[in-house]
């Protein structure tokens, strides 16, 4: 019941004019960012965090919540209308969404996607509100060795699972691990890779590398005309087909659960949740043959699932400081900028802000429905926005934003350097997410390992002294071996994909 009184005391902070405006703007921007192929929630939040730095924490975090939720739905708009998913999480929506639109019902397809997305987000936010606080208390049970294994598991899972090619994933993670080494060694006070530059003594700020890797490459693509689409005439009128409420309810329940569970596991997240939900839905149904031909359930399942993972991915981030994917990493970055450190104390010392943030995740789910309901026609115009104008705009925002964090030009150059690196990595098909997560997880792994050994006086057995350590070590081994399982899965998915299209 403690949770409910905490929610009640945080609520007045959420329903203030600045926070409501921030959530509204965030959701509008989020849907737009999601709708534009090439731009993602991660990138939207990365550009935004430095700019919201001077605002009240809840105003900034409300905007972040809006972008996160909105982008997950926004990705379905071009997926349905143009057969181009706006974000990777929208891939599964193409299968049935675009087919339904082709049959002359784009409006119904958008509506199903919108309602499913909003419901998924709402369920996820409620799960976050109810699960995060009790789970945060468990964090007290985590010793240094447990944190070490948790970070190692996160790193392994992310490198292996996020990349099509595990070697490239590990390469990217190694880059992040290196960046994480820069600065003063917290356990001895020695300088590492600082090249006698005072600017590097406190290490590379996570926002600097996030903005560089996530915002600059898409901005370059926009400017060079690589991203964006030539959208001609797009029809969103469609007939007023009846909304199939009763058949969709079981779909929503099943897909929300899938989204929640997938969201909790590091490295998975929206894209996988959506594909899995679509596939599971097809397996459950009596007429699997209808899937891929414009089946309402086939739109509802992936859209509900990819929104249901939004809140769930934040649970390990808020309670243990371990982000499961790139979006959670940027949200974690946003919290850190506002001086909110994850862990059990977050829910005690900053209860109003953290409960308020979780509430904004719920409220923006509602905003999304309203904005999507009345604005879907307008969002079609977003698809026509010229990339050559948008690119420099994004670039300008990142420079102003990064400068404003520490009033440091050095960090702006560093950010642009990471941007160039990120662009190169994308060209070489090396994923950037493992690098970003390694910047956060690497120092956690290193410091907790060394601290554990310092406390034990160098006795290695402390690393496997507790049940949590054993469990996480076992999970790490499973993650290393999982490419094998994934190869089998992808062969199966390829077969179903071929049948679908």
């Amino acid at each position, binding site marked *: 019941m403690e949770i409910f009184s905490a929610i009640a005391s945080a609520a007045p902070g959420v329903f203030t004019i600045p926070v409501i405006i921030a959530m509204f703007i965030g959701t509008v921007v989020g849907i737009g960012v999601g709708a534009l192929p090439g731009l993602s929630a991660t990138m939207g939040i990365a550009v935004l965090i430095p700019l919201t*730095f*001077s605002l009240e924490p809840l105003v900034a975090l409300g905007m972040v919540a809006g972008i996160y939720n909105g982008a997950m739905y926004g990705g379905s708009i071009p997926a349905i209308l143009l057969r181009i998913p706006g974000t990777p999480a929208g891939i599964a929506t193409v299968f049935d969404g675009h087919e339904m639109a082709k049959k002359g019902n784009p409006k119904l397809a958008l509506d199903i996607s919108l309602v499913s997305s909003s419901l998924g987000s709402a369920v996820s936010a409620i799960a976050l509100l109810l699960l995060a606080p009790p789970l945060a208390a468990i*964090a*007290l*049970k*985590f*010793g*240094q060795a447990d944190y070490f294994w948790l970070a190692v598991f996160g790193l392994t899972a992310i490198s292996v699972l996020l990349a099509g090619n595990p070697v490239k994933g590990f390469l990217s993670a190694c880059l992040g691990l290196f960046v994480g080494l820069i600065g*003063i060694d*917290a*356990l*001895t*006070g*020695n*300088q590492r890779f600082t090249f006698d530059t*005072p*600017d590097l*003594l*406190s290490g590379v700020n996570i926002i600097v590398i996030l903005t560089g890797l996530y915002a600059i490459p898409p901005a370059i693509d926009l400017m060079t005309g690589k991203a964006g689409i030539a959208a001609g005439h797009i029809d969103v009128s469609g007939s007023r087909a009846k909304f199939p409420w009763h058949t969709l309810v079981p779909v929503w329940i099943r897909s929300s659960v899938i989204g929640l569970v997938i969201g909790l596991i590091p490295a998975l997240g929206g894209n996988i949740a959506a594909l899995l939900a679509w596939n599971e839905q097809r397996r459950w149904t009596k007429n699997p043959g209808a899937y891929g031909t414009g089946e309402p359930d086939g739109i509802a399942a992936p859209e509900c699932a990819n929104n249901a993972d939004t809140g769930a991915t934040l649970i390990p981030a808020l309670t243990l400081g371990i982000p499961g994917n790139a979006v959670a990493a940027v949200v974690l970055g946003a919290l850190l*900028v*506002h*001086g909110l*450190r994850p*862990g*059990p*104390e977050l829910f005690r*010392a900053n209860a109003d802000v953290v409960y308020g943030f979780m509430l904004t995740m719920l409220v923006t789910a509602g905003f999304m429905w309203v904005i999507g309901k009345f604005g879907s026609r307008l969002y079609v115009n977003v698809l026509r926005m010229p990339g050559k104008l948008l690119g420099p705009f994004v670039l300008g925002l990142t420079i102003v934003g990064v400068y404003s964090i*520490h*009033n*440091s030009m050095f960090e702006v150059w560093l950010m642009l350097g990471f941007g160039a690196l990120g662009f190169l990595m994308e060209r070489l098909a090396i994923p950037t997410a493992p690098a970003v997560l390694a910047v956060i997880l690497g120092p956690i792994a290193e*410091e907790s390992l060394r*601290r554990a050994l*310092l*406390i034990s*006086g160098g006795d290695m057995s402390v690393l496997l002294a507790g049940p949590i350590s054993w469990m996480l070590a076992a999970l790490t081994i499973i993650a290393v071996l999982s490419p094998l399982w994934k190869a089998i899965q992808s062969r199966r998915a390829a077969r179903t994909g071929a049948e679908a299209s």
Partner: protein
Amino acid sequence: MKLTSKILCVALGSTVLAGPAIAQEYPERPIDMIVAYSAGGGTDVAARTLVPYIEEHLPGDATINVINRPGAGGEIGFTALANADPDGYTIGFVNLPNLLSIAIQRETDYELSSFQPVADIVYDPGGFGASADAGFDDLEGLVEYAENKSGPVTYGTTGIGSDDHLAALTFARQAGIEMRHIPFSGAADVRAALLGGQIDLASTNVSELIDYADSGDVVILGQMGEERWSEASDIPTFQEQGFDVVMGSDRGLAAPAGFPEDALATLQTAVEAAVADPEFQERAQEQRLPLSFMDAEAFGAKLDRMNENLQGIWEEQPWVEQ
């Protein structure tokens, strides 16, 4: 001849008149205040709480802009302050012992003489905290525990070279016990490790422990001020318990060396009035800021004393491996 002397008279007269006029006019433009830590951090919040009251007590429509220059444990901001033009329009917060310990442990672009002390504002004494079920509640008990324990006593601090670390080094030497340092990245992590039973002792500022002592989770073994802090008047000092350990963190105001004297005088008066302002004191109480005002001279003497003390610790026991 007459004309020349007339001109001379006018010229001299005007300078004589202009002198005090300028002093009264200070500040005639906004003053920059460098804070060497991130916005939203403890020092930043304290600075932003104090600024409006200094503005109010400065003559005219004074404005002070807070500029955050965080990084390298404060070194970036301290260097920026030391190298600023001493024209009266750049001041900054300096945190002790970081300002001094950084300059001792590595090459820096500033030294103590690069600064003109303005005023000390906050003094947060250090303290030792143990878990409530540790079985000892004072320093004597700790020493006894340490002598009977097979390995060294482990203590957590907020980092290498922090006041917490230096205090524990001094204490271990005086008590003749073996203590092992476990650095963490913040007071919250130290508390979590203490409550989770991972370390024997937390060496942090008393203000970081007081809430947990009130709730009964933590026992504070002693505080390191020369006198007891008013918010923790039931906790004896280290000196009272027979250990000569005086350590804590200070947050004071300083300016670049060569700061104009009239500006310093005006500023000092305004800061003193601001700290004494009952409204500010109420807000400081809310944030549990242990206020301790010292004027430029007393603060300067404290800086010299502390610098000497730290040099002594460094020579005997360098806290960073060379």
